[in-house]
């Protein structure tokens, strides 16, 4: 091996590192320790509670008097726990979210955590075709628990593509 390719490889590595740094600077994302913890907590709730369907995760992560803005759910933790308990739990709980249950964007800011999803559905304007749309879940964290939840759910079928 000659010196030149080695140098070239080093150059490529430096260029890649510089690109990665520029990307990070461009995003200027500087979450606080608390925001990082809040994001991790919400992702753990999603994985253990909603993906693995473990009802006890509701006790661990949700405030008992959680304010629920989804118009199809009653207020509080109990209703979410009941919904999860209808499904068979997945064991062992997966260590990471499966790709199809991973949000397209996720961030924590202040007391809030935002998850934005990309879903696919049948195109009502073009039979046989699929199209992509987005949905969201928003959480407010208080004292280490999810104290409030919002999403895009409506009472009518137009939003029925929601999981």
């Amino acid at each position, binding site marked *: 091996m000659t010196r030149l390719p080695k140098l070239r490889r080093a150059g490529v590595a430096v260029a890649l590192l510089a690109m990665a740094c520029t990307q990070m600077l*461009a*995003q*200027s*994302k*500087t*979450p*606080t320790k608390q*925001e990082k913890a809040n994001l991790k907590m919400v992702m753990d709730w999603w994985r253990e509670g909603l993906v693995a369907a473990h009802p006890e995760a509701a006790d661990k992560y949700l405030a008992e008097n959680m304010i629920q*803005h989804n*118009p199809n759910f009653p207020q509080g933790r109990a209703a979410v726990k009941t919904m999860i308990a209808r499904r068979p739990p997945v064991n062992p709980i997966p260590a990471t979210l499966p790709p199809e249950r991973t949000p*397209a*964007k996720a*961030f*924590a*800011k*202040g*007391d*809030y955590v*935002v998850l*934005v999803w*990309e879903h696919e*559905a049948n*195109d*009502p*304007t073009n039979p046989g075709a699929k*199209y*992509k*749309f*987005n*949905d*969201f879940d*928003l959480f407010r964290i208080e004292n280490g628990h999810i104290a409030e939840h*919002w*999403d*895009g*759910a*409506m*009472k*009518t079928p*137009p*939003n029925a*593509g929601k999981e």
Partner: protein
Amino acid sequence: MKLSTKLMAASVATLVGAMLAQNVGKLSPQEQKNQDVATKEMKDILQYGHIELAEQYIAPIYIQHNPNVPTGRDGFLKFFGPRAKPEPIKDEWKNKPALILTSGDLVFYLFDRTAKDPADPSKTYNYNWFDMVRVDNGQIQEHWDTAKKAPPQGGR
């Protein structure tokens, strides 16, 4: 009587306090700039109808994720141009978001909406809508929201 008045005043104060105490985190100077640019689209262009500001604030390669609106600045102008009814721009929103969150290049808006209850058309109920944009170089590069495709005869 006096006690119940006091209790009521206290609960109103608590409620107002809770609403004011919305902790949306600390914004860096760049995040504040990004949020200001995002608000140009969400408030001045879309709510006050100043479609001419799209030239300045919407990137030519604007990626549109709303499945009912064509992509790009051209698509944005084609869709919203004919609908725009310009009014003098004010500092306050016409339809104020319930929450604005900005993290790095992403700005997220939560809106409260009302719809007719399908189970009882004499009643309404509340639901939520989101918009999110990505801002870079002082222009909006990408947009997401809750919109789904409706059957041809339906609304948005």
